[in-house]
């Protein structure tokens, strides 16, 4: 026992845990502990003190672990983590909610219970980190800087693996319709993240109105197909072009602004586009939106059950397959996958070219850039234009996938989510954006059946990311200054 408590102040630990338990008890005893039930005679209160007890025990264990972790002791948290994990895992693995041990599970739905495992997982990982740090001589920490080359190789390998998996997924046995659909949405956001990354991550221009260009792309395709009947493949480059020109138009007046001011103006621009879309009823359909947007075809072969009226073949009949709506979903998935990969490839390439270097340099120091003979106006305009172009591509894909668009799809929160993807991914990191898009978009979609609980999970994940990875999931370029030296474990 003494070994467990080594380095801990027993009194403070006791006070800490008792305080947490008391607060938990006070908070839960009335709110959770009494359930209002409607009986035939009227309303009555039914005590549920076993739940209160459960909360108190969990909080006691958790706060013990947290206290010990904060004191950089790892043995006790390790024990607590294992105990909690075991208490959760045993009923989860044996018969789940039906088993006799089900009273150990905190939630009435299985996925949330799995999510609850994050708590012991967090404790265990942190404890393992501390144990590792205490077992390792401090000199080893200094070697980390030179591992960037290996780190690059790992991230390259991981990227290639992800691409392979992404291509194989729809034809693999796991490729269900629902999952491919979710992944398509995730891929849209990955592409938007990669596009915004050019503006925010590389050029360092905080753009809060990025969704405006997404909207421009979507409406370009919707309107061009509605008024002129042009196909998706003609409209795709045009949508990119329109969005890019909007980016440049926005760029001109705001280039003299920096930081917060730029953010506010771009925010305003995003709203202007949306308000125009709502109010220009004759042209855009206003809040009614535009429906019946044609789906993209596979080199002229449409995805539909019956052959087109004017003759010709469908995708299914041409390849001698029986019609299956899954074909279209998989095709859309591959389409956005290719578009997103193109965005990524373009970004990686342009980073190595003078213009890409100039973006990064501009982010670092504008005055020094001027002193080197760079014209900041052109450099920034290029960033805005190219970033907007990819949003335009993604927008026209979005319109084609949905078949219906309205200004409601292009509200500010979309910009915020895209920005969150870029920031959480680690500014400037391509792979990080994939992970953060998967987490921010994929998780809520995946846990849609949990309804309102999913926002809880979403928030929890966000907090955990910020605790573990304050500079983003994959922070390729480290901050220049750290408050605590690396490997300090704080």
């Amino acid at each position, binding site marked *: 026992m003494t070994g467990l408590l080594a380095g801990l102040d027993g009194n403070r630990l006791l006070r800490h845990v008792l305080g947490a338990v008391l607060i938990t008890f006070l908070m839960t005893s009335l709110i959770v502990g009494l359930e209002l039930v409607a009986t035939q005679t009227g309303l009555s209160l039914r005590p549920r003190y076993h739940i209160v007890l459960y909360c108190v025990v969990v909080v006691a264990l958790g706060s013990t672990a947290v206290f010990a972790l904060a004191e950089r002791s790892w043995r006790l948290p390790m024990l607590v983590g294992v105990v909690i994990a075991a208490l959760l895992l045993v009923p989860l693995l044996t018969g789940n909610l039906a088993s006799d041990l089900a009273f150990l599970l905190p939630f009435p739905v299985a996925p949330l219970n799995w999510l609850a495992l994050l708590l012991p997982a967090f404790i265990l990982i942190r404890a393992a980190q501390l144990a590792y740090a205490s077992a390792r001589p401090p000199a080893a920490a200094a070697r980390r800087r030179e591992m960037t080359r290996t780190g690059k190789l790992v991230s390259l390998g991981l990227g290639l693996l992800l691409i392979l998996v992404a291509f194989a997924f729809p034809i693999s046995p796991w490729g269900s319709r629902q999952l491919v659909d979710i992944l398509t949405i995730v891929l849209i956001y990955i592409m938007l993240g990669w596009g915004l990354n050019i503006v925010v991550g590389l050029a360092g221009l905080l753009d809060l109105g990025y969704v405006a260009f997404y909207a421009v792309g979507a409406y370009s395709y919707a309107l061009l197909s509605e008024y002129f009947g042009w196909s998706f493949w003609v409209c795709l480059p045009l949508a990119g072009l329109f969005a890019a020109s909007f980016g440049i138009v926005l760029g001109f007046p705001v280039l003299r602004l920096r930081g917060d001011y730029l953010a506010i103006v771009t925010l305003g621009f995003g709203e202007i586009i949306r308000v125009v879309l709502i109010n220009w009823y004759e042209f855009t359909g206003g809040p009614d939106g535009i429906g019946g947007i044609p789906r993209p075809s596979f080199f002229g072969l449409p995805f539909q059950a019956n052959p087109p009226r004017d003759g010709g073949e469908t995708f299914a009949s041409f390849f001698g397959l029986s019609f299956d709506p899954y074909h279209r979903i998989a095709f859309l998935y591959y389409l956005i996958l290719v578009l997103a990969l193109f965005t990524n490839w373009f970004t990686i390439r342009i980073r190595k070219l003078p213009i890409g270097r100039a973006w*990064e*340099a501009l982010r*670092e*120091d504008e005055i*020094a850039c*001027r002193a*080197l*003979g*760079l014209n900041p106006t052109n450099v920034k305009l290029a960033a805005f234009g190219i970033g907007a172009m990819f949003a335009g591509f993604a927008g026209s894909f979005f319109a084609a996938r949905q078949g219906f668009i309205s200004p409601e799809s292009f509200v500010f929160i979309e910009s915020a989510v895209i920005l969150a993807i870029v920031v959480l991914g680690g500014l400037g990191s391509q792979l990080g954006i994939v992970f953060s898009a998967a987490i921010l978009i994929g998780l809520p979609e995946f846990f849609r059946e949990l309804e309102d609980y999913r926002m809880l999970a979403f928030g929890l994940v966000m907090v955990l990311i910020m605790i573990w990875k304050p500079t983003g999931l994959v922070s390729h*370029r480290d901050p220049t200054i750290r408050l605590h030296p690396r490997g300090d474990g704080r």
Partner: protein
Amino acid sequence: MLVIEGIHAFYGRIEALKGVSLEVKQGEIVTLIGANGAGKSTLLMTICGQPRGQGGRIVLEGIDITNMSTHQIMRRGIAQSPEGRRVFPRMTVYENLQMGAINVDPGHFEGDLKRCFELFPILERRRGQRAGTLSGGEQQMLAIARAMMARPRLLLLDEPSLGLAPLIVRQIFSVIKELNQQGVTVLLVEQNAFHALKLAHRAYVLVNGQITMTGTGRQLLADPEVRRAYLEGGH
């Protein structure tokens, strides 16, 4: 090579330069000394077009550059190592040097890089390291090397000795001398008057936005007024 005639410069309504005239001839090291706030850095920045010079002319190699924009001026064989170094902290040494050469024919890059590494061997050892993690002296060397990557005929140096240990200062000044011997004309702004004057062919003293004295470096070094104001002040 560079002729400045009666130039004025303003920050808002404050007149920072009050009719400064100055000449830098081909192959010279010209030093500009003066107290804090005398307008030394402003003069260098005005040559680069920011703030824009008014009321007079700035002529570089026979071409009037007074009204050109900064990026146009900086492509005319002139390069600056700005005050406070201003290296790109999160980019590596190599990337910083690449940025220096951004407006130069890529064919020159390898040769120029080799030359920079010969001047500052420490940079070669640090080439993959982020500029922000370099020491102050190394950052100053990088700032000068980055300016040299632009293949300037005229190099503007703004306080290269700022905040550096005496040994490093000596090293940097000897590199400036070497660069000059290789044919680069240098305009050096300094507070470290003793070293700067020893190095200079000619020098100017700037006080409150006006040139008050000029002469060869040796003359000014011997001048009692300069000695009193800039060399013996703190002792």
